[in-house]
């Protein structure tokens, strides 16, 4: 198109040239409109982060003003948050809950997902339907009997065990996601393993697991985020014992204790958000790499 317009020897008929120019102008206008919209949307999505971060660096008095940008950059606010009694304990508890919970979930969910994806047995479709139903069940529906069970019968309230122990018995969402992923592994690989004399467990460990790495990474990522973000669970089981609080739960009490200190509260907020976003950036790469390396998808 541009070549035609650039040729001086053979001038295009004025009508066509005009139409071409209009088309190009319209394309340019469209590009500008689209990217203006894109920038506007980007501002909507990023400005909250920016304002939170800027406020986290303000002095105590300035945080009470309507200023948007700090006069002095008080990096010490972050040190103050770490010095808050309990903050490091919440951090450790969150890592244990998210880390151990994720490990338990993966170990217990993989065999179930494998059976649902690759075994033929009566009741398989029913089991899958029940898994989906469990996935959609709000935790509040069964919390009263569960609380009575953990607190009154096993005396485990004030700890995070009532949240982690169930993860050793399969997590519905993880089972479902892994099952969807394992469905994409061709049966020929499993048959070949069997011919080579692998038992069921051997096939799962030596053939399926390496191929399912991206799926497992995705499940681990989701479960880690779930535990990190969970508020209801710690509220029910850990509220009576600040030594068992997690970051998501403790953050809110932070606001209670620091009432008007928006700067410190926002610094704590940044510290709760940052790890999740960092994990995402690292895991996103591993995830994409995993998908391309194993060649399962395709």
């Amino acid at each position: 198109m541009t070549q035609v317009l650039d040729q001086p020897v053979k001038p295009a008929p004025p009508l066509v040239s005009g139409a071409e120019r209009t088309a190009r102008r319209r394309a340019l206008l469209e590009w500008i409109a689209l990217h203006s919209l894109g920038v506007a949307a980007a501002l909507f999505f990023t400005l909250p982060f920016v304002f939170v971060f800027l406020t986290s660096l303000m002095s105590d008095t300035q945080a009470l003003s309507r200023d948007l940008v700090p006069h002095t950059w008080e990096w010490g606010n972050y040190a103050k948050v770490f010095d808050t009694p309990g903050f490091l304990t919440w951090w450790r508890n969150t890592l244990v809950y998210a880390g151990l919970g994720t490990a338990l979930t993966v170990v217990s969910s993989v065999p179930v997902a494998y059976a649902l994806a690759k075994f033929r047995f009566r009741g398989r479709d029913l089991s899958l339907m029940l898994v989906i139903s469990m996935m959609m069940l709000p935790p509040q529906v069964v919390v009263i009997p569960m609380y009575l069970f953990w607190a009154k019968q096993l005396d485990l309230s004030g700890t995070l065990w009532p949240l982690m122990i169930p993860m050793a018995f399969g997590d519905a969402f993880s089972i479902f996601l892994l099952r969807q992923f394992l469905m994409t592994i061709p049966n020929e690989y499993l048959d070949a393993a069997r011919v080579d004399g692998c038992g069921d467990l051997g096939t799962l460990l030596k053939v399926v697991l390496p191929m399912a790495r991206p799926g497992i990474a995705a499940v681990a990522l989701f479960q880690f985020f779930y535990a990190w973000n969970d508020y209801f669970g710690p509220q029910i089981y850990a509220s009576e014992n600040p030594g068992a609080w997690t970051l998501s739960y403790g953050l809110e009490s932070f606001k209670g204790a620091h009432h008007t200190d928006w700067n410190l509260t926002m610094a704590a907020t940044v510290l709760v958000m940052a790890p999740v976003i960092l994990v995402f950036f690292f895991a996103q790469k591993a995830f994409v790499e995993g998908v391309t390396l194993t060649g399962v998808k395709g």
Partner: protein
Amino acid sequence: MSALTLASKRRRSALRTLAFMSPWLIGFAVFFAYPLISTVYFSFMHYDGFRPPTWSGGKNWAYVFEHYPLFWPALRNTLWLVLVMVTLRVVFGLGVGLLITKIKTGTGLFRTLFYLPYLAPPVAATMAFAFLLNPGTGPVNSILEKAGVPAPGWFNDPAWSKPALTLLALWGIGDLMVIFMAALLDVPAEQYEAAQLDGASAWQRFRYVTLPNIAPIVMFAVVTGVIQTMQYYTQPLIAGKVASGVIQGAGTQFEPGYPDKSTLTLPQLVYNLGFQRFDYGSACVVALVLFALSTAFTALLMRRRGGLIQAGD
């Protein structure tokens, strides 16, 4: 002889299935079936956690539906959220998905920026919005007032608390954006070319090519949105607690639904009845209402989903 080996083979295969399924079978029995039956049982009992439970017939049910002052406001709020928040989220998610598929420069950067808020932990995101929208010194109202626009009370005004929650929900649109983006890229390009040859306008192409192709995904987004709204808990709770400003520490004593019950949702009632009032029986009634509603929509999802869930079968 061969019949015998066949039988033993079958038995071994059944045992194998049982072994692989066992974590979930135990989990299903202990953490799903038992507590669900138990919830039904307690909904007919009077139980405060100290004295042994006693039979109370339909009293808890009558109390929740007729006298419990928070039940109907919570249900009305849920309806509001389903009608307004779910609709706006689907429309906005589709809009952002369309925008990202059309943008050709810096797509990766835009996509990451649009997706990030979805990752923000709910408590942290709600705290951030409670700060951004706080009527006293919040940046949003500062900017609105400078621009001469009347600044609302957001989380402190019963009329504005749900719109403020909606704004927070729209900020975290990343999940829907990704789903819609994938669906939009799957629409066959030939159909657009054919429509263009027929002289269809941009709106007509969207209406007659794009929409019919992504209709199942829109349906999926609506139904999962409704199910998520039934479970909506952390954001309205934190918004109410922070805005009320009276909380000291994270104890159990706070007025749910601040301001004026406008942020109450059903899951909060289970907490209020069970863990603030120690009326476990009535808490189980609300839990069962919640169960009935979310099961109804889950059933709708499984029926409507068709190709979505059985993908790969």
